[in-house]
């Protein structure tokens, strides 16, 4: 089997369509493992990993840990409040110390954009970006693509609409790069104040009115809306946002019958998405979570296990 010829996974902007295809193909066989009764393969036995989470996370952290355990590696997870960051140790010192314990890989979530690049430059082991600030969240982008591919059978020429706070979203950035590389069309919708400046650089179309975008969409993805954006004066109230941009049953009724509704979680029910839509028949939000484990197993395998016999 092929492997990824790279040390780190930092973002999808810098990844090729071939690499993304390889990861998605590999994830398919990994999902088969998760569905077994005994969910364990020896592929990464004897490999150790550190999951460094400088920001709270439930889904991504659990997903990485399970992926690591299903592949028989030995993960340790360190959270922000229990880590030495609070004692003033620098990131570089923290990871260099951990590196001396002979770990093979660091998975890191960090509130500052570019931290994964910084870390990757400073250590010899593999770095997997589990979300850096507002920059990228590549494994989320991959699991979203995996979910779409699984349901639709293709990514080429699909129309994917991403609704909400594109400006501050690492999930949006990873999806925008990844989906377009795989041949999908991406349209973003939401208030102008939540769009990144010079949006053209991403190669996406912008639709201020969600209705205009949604009509012929194959996928509609809502993003989590953070309360502090309202406090920062980017829009007036959560209820006005919900009224203009929330995925309500009425709005989704205008979409195609086979539209996929997605959300990276955690959801603000009643704000960017209503419960009827989130829990409705077109929603694949929970499938996204399952995809997450498979995609992360695939990445770990392709980065660390590819040279060994399975």
């Amino acid at each position, binding site marked *: 089997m092929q492997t990824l010829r790279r040390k780190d996974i930092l973002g999808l902007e810098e990844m090729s369509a071939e690499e993304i295809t390889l990861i998605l193909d590999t994830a398919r066989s990994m999902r088969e493992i998760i569905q077994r009764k005994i969910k364990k393969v020896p592929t990464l036995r004897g490999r150790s990993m550190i999951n460094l989470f400088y920001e709270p996370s439930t889904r991504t952290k659990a997903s990485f840990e399970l992926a690591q355990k299903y592949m028989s590696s030995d993960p340790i997870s360190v959270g922000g409040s229990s880590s030495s960051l609070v004692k003033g140790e620098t990131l570089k010192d923290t990871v260099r110390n951990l590196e001396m314990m002979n770990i093979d890989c660091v998975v890191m979530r960090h509130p*500052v954009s570019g931290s994964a690049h910084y870390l990757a430059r400073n250590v010899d082991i593999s770095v997997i970006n589990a979300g850096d600030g507002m920059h*990228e969240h590549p494994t989320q982008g991959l699991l979203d693509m995996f979910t779409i591919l699984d349901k639709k059978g293709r990514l080429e020429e699909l129309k994917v609409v991403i609704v909400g706070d594109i400006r501050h979203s690492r999930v949006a950035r990873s999806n925008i790069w990844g989906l377009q590389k795989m041949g999908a069309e991406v349209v973003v919708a939401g208030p102008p104040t939540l769009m990144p400046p010079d949006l053209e650089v991403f190669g996406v179309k912008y639709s201020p009115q969600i209705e205009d975008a949604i009509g012929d969409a194959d996928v509609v993805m809502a993003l989590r809306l953070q309360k502090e954006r309202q406090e920062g004066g980017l829009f007036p109230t959560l209820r006005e946002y919900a009224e203009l941009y929330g995925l309500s049953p009425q709005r989704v009724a205008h979409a195609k019958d086979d539209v996929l509704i997605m959300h990276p979680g955690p959801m603000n029910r009643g704000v960017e998405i209503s419960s009827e839509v989130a829990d409705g028949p077109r929603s694949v939000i929970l499938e996204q979570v399952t995809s997450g484990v498979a995609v992360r197993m695939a990445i770990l395998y392709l980065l660390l296990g590819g040279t060994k016999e399975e």
Partner: protein
Amino acid sequence: MKTLLIKGGRVIDPSRGFDAQADLLIKNGMIEAVEKGLKAPAGTEVIDAEGQVVMPGLIDMHVHLRDPGREYQEDIISGAKAAAAGGFTAVAAMANTDPVADDPAIIRYVIDRAAGAVARVHPIGALTKNLGGTEMAELARMKRFGAVAFSDDGKPVVSGTVMRNALQYAGGIDALIIAHEEDPYLFEGGMIHEGAVSSVLGLRGIPAEAEEVMLARDLMLLRAAGGGRLHIAHVSTAGSVELLRRAKAEGQNVTAEAAPHHLLLTDRAVKNSGYSTNTKVNPPLRSEYDRQALWAGLLDGTIDAIASDHAPHHGDDKDVEFDFAPFGIAGLETTLPLMLDELSSGRIKKLTLPLLVEKMSTAPARILGLDAGTLQPGSPADVTIADTNRSFVVNPETWHSKSRNTPFAGRSLSGAPVMTIVGGRVAMKEGVITEQE
């Protein structure tokens, strides 16, 4: 003090419109004569400058020497060495030290420390007490102790009332105010220039308007004050250049400077370097459009001076995640080589050596009111000699500054200072600093 005869160089002195091959005689620390075929009196040290450029000593009118308070980053002695190594005979040091230079005692401290330094260090006093932006500092008393200008640089003066009063008051005592133009609300948490690059990298943007609206305000306040002199620090945007061009056309008493990193780099450097914190600077590296506008402004006289905004930071402070790193680039030892390299590359068509000397010596001396920036006989012998053909690679490890933070490390440049003479004394020769006895 030795008598020096600098022979055979191309002498450029924009203060007198002089540009010709000539000899330069220095006696008792003063310029004695500038002529062709000067004879060396007995005991004279003859310096062969054939094929080199002889200029009035360069002046960096915007540096941070961190002294007092953060001497682990730089101090007056090391900063002056870095200046001399970079071809500068004088620098003007900003007031954002610890304690802030907002009191005659601190001005006096800087001047006393500078007496033992290899280059001239002129203190700039704070405009407001503790850079607080509310109460005016003792401008006249600091001026009497040797402050050459007043600035809260590093911080904007947020209150329009405070700025208006300061301009009016300074006009009464013929004091120069240097403004750091930044609207703190538009700036809010920004990291790099707001635009395509900040969007892709997910870094908070600093919009061009953060600088421009404050500059527009201060130009209006200057007009209303009916007097006073205002100098704009580190101009970084096309909009600012346009505002300044209009203000100058109206005859407003305003001058401006640009920094080499803004003239040579854009926000793409942040991306290309993989978020290197050495590209993090305030004002931020802007767009190519802005960069071009700065050159246009420099060439047409809208921007009067080139100043490094030398902002030394310790390696440890910069070796962190992007958001956590301080803003700043150390520029004393790269500014002249970068400019000479730009000249020799021919990338900027109308750029000439006399223009560079004007921007780096004549104009800063005029703006700060210094007895410098000229090779007029009878003037203090501050002289810089450069070799425009000397090639080297920027290596911060060889610097005299205590800091190493530069985005230009590894760049091959053509053009370097070879001698810096301060008051008739050789302070730097071929990169070697001659300490004060």
